[in-house]
């Protein structure tokens, strides 16, 4: 390169042009290197490595069919875009599919004329029926579950997880009703998210709520990296979409219906971003005004992909290193067990041995120390005895 440059010193353009040319070539080379590094860095820099979803329907009874259909349609979209069942916590407060009032059992429809069955054939509901309570919901979010809880009921997220939380049901200004018997307030929810942030249980969180006055639920959030969407502002009601005359109830809420239609066009490699999501269901279609909140979110919503929350990330790292395996796994020998000749003959037990049952001795109850009442009674008797006869008579007893 130096020889090349020195060759150009003899050109009549002069020293400074030659220096300029060298500088420009060097700059282009450096820029190219940096750019290459940037795309590689970008590949790993979106921040999250896994996706989770917590989808909750909080309403009970047959006439709240639409809330279950809302949750199941988001479940269906999220599964279709790649999040596996093991990373989805689905909570349905009542069973609509196998409800005896359902004219088509094992189905939950979202569109009129039974076009789309969002229940499907491969659904796994983690919390159902009476298990959907405020306490269980907050325990799932914060991770403080009893030790015997199975894995499918836990939210095992870490600090690189993007979590989608979807709530639907009946709500009011500052609260959401769970199963007609209890409520969760926006303060509790905000505190739960703060606990999650302190315990580093999420990287970024997308919160979607479809209830009446939904915007009141995200007013109190104060933890970073949360983006929230709601179907209506404070003082407005979210309306339902369309009834089906055969089933007899309203099938979906308007906001989630148009959200489902929007998500049906998204595929795992899609590049749509959050700004498109904010435009879902304008006032003309929804009658209520959907709202959103992005001030707590660090990235610009225009750079956040829909699949960052609704889809699942699979980052592949190609390595050329060789991996040395340990010693080969030895096949366990079944030999000794099978070569023994068993002398004992097993047999089945009599299912109803009448004579044995009749002559069964009553079970010896385990000895328990006497209950409080008995102890108190004995203490009273002893006290009265010693009061009347005096303690010096103790020696006559022993």
């Amino acid at each position, binding site marked *: 390169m130096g020889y090349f440059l020195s060759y150009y010193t003899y050109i009549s353009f002069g020293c400074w042009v030659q220096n300029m040319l060298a500088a420009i070539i060097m700059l282009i080379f450096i820029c190219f290197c940096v750019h290459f590094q940037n795309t590689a860095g970008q590949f790993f820099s979106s921040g999250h490595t896994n996706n989770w979803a917590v989808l909750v329907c909080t309403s*009970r*009874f047959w006439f709240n069919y639409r809330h279950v259909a809302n949750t199941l349609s988001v479940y269906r979209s999220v599964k279709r875009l790649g999040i596996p069942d093991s990373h989805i916590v689905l909570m349905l407060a009542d*069973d609509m*599919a*196998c409800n005896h009032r359902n004219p*088509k*059992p*094992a*189905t939950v429809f979202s569109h009129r004329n039974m076009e789309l069955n969002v*229940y*499907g*054939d*491969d*659904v*796994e*509901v*983690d919390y*159902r*029926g*009476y*298990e959907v309570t405020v306490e269980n919901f907050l325990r799932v979010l914060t991770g403080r579950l*009893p030790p*015997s*809880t*199975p*894995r*499918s*009921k836990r939210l095992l997220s870490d600090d690189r997880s993007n979590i989608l939380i979807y709530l639907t049901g009946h709500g009011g200004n500052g609260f959401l009703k769970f*199963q*007609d*018997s209890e409520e969760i307030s926006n303060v509790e929810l905000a505190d739960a998210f703060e606990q999650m942030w302190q315990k580093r249980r999420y990287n970024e969180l997308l919160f979607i709520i479809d209830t009446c006055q939904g915007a009141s639920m995200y007013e109190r959030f104060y933890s970073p990296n949360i983006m929230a969407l709601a179907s209506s502002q404070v003082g407005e009601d979210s309306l339902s979409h369309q009834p089906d005359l055969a089933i007899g109830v309203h099938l979906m809420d308007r906001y989630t219906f148009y959200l489902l239609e929007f998500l049906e066009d998204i595929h795992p490699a899609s590049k749509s971003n959050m700004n498109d999501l904010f435009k879902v269901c304008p006032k003309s279609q929804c009658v209520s005004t959907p709202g959103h909140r992005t001030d707590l979110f660090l990235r610009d919503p225009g750079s956040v992909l829909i699949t960052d929350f609704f889809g699942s990330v699979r980052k592949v790292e190609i390595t050329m290193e060789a991996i040395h395996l340990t010693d080969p796994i030895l096949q*366990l020998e*079944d*030999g000794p*067990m*099978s070569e023994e*000749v*068993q002398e*004992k*003959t*097993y*047999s*089945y*037990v*009599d*299912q*109803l*041995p*009448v004579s044995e*049952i*009749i002559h*069964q001795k*009553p*079970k010896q109850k385990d000895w328990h120390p006497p209950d409080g009442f008995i102890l108190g009674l004995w203490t009273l008797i002893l006290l009265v005895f010693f009061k009347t006869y005096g303690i010096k008579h103790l020696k006559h007893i022993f």
Partner: protein
Amino acid sequence: TLVARSLLANDFQEELVIRPLHSGDIYASFQFRTLWETDFMRENKVSHYRLFPKSLGQVISKFSVRELHISFTQGYWRTMQWGQPFLPSPPGAELWVWFQDSVTDVDAAWKELTNVLSGIFCASLNFIDSTNTVQPSASFKPLGIVNETDHRFLRYATLPREIVCTENLTPWKKLLPCGSKAGLAVLLKSEKLFHSSFFSQTVHIRPVCQDRECKTTSWELRQTLNVVFDLHTSGQGKREWSLFKMFSRTLTEACPLASSSKIYIDVTDNPQEEYFELSPATPLLSQAVVLGDRRTFSVYDLTQQLFKSVSDLLPAGSMLRPLLHAERYVAGYGLQTGEIHTVMYNNHPFRSFPVLLLDSVPWYLRLYIHTLTVTSKGKDNTPSYIHYQPSKDRMRPHLLEMLVQLPPHSVTEVTVQFERALLKWTEYTPDPNHGFYVGSSVISALVPSSVAMDTNITQEQPLFSSFFPCKEESSYFVRVYTEPLLVNLPTPDFSMPYNVICLTCTVVAVGYGSLYNLLTRSFQIEEPNPRLAKKIANFIRRIRGVPLLS
């Protein structure tokens, strides 16, 4: 021989039995059995699973389970119209487990086991706790191989409210070796299965004899699915059905991992093919004695040919009347007291037999055991064995077990009075006006059989007839479940706390507030603000020292 033994070690068989019932329904029973010769209890854990599902194998070894029986049922089996089922099950969920002798804390193991199973089957089995678990003292003897039976290691619980839907069927299908991709499980489509009069899916795990001598045992996993389709409501005009009409799927091939894959059609009522004919026809007929009755079946082996349909089904002749049948209902009026009646029918013309009745009543129905009466044909019938464990509020349910001898051709009625308790207001479910469920009674009996039963325990028997072990030829074991009961408890008005708070606050504000104001407020007379002219006049008057205008 070592190689041959390992080939036999894992065996999978599948079977479908279709029996047209006299009420016009079709009873289809799927049975899938996996046999595995292994020892879950040895120290180095089992790590290589082939046909046996890993999730259940880990459950067995972790909790030292000897036998596990779990069933999920939707609907009630109508014994008088449909006969006896091959495998009975009560409405809702039922779980009973025998633990190994090595378990020290059975209750803790039971609690953890129910939680783990609730995760595996997507059901609310975690609601099983000490308030609905009982320890039967004579019923539910082990169905598998065992050294001795100590009932301390047995736990039984039922959840009558539990619903069954696709979310329970999906993990159940995933336990099968071929999943729902090949073999008979292809037919299991939830939209048709749940549109039926009765649906039940069960899982049974127990150790069984490997062969006739029974020197070695192997673990058996049986998954059964019983469904009764009502052809009338399914919109069938003609009385013909096919696999496609029942299940909306056709069979493609047998499961390649299955050693046998068979379909049995009950043709006992159709000896000369006068009422219905099968297509494709098969010359293979087999006879089996099941539930005290000798029945003839057409057998289709799926590894050789596929089965399609039956045309013009019209079962005739009289159904064998079930010999044992039971009902249960609540009598009485009001929300304070009531009476539980359990009625057992013995339809045998001349033989009497003993039955073991197991009743588990929740604590909030306080039974008065001194009012327990057992009457047969109007006369008192004293049970030869009674085991009663009283309930403890919020801790333990009632347990009543009785061995009653049913006289021939009679009706036996067991009645007991109860009183309803008032629950704490947080203990009510979100929909308390629906009522509270009481689990089904279980009646176990050895019913005399008119046909000699097969006591041979070889494995050539079809699966549906070899579930209950048979010790003697003259009787067969049967378990009958009654209906669950639905009782209303006195329900408070849940809006009362809000009403009381509003009322109290209003009373305090209005009553005390006004009184406080009256006592502490002092009144001063204030002159109104004078107009401008008056102000100037008053100002001049003040200067002059003359009294002011009012």
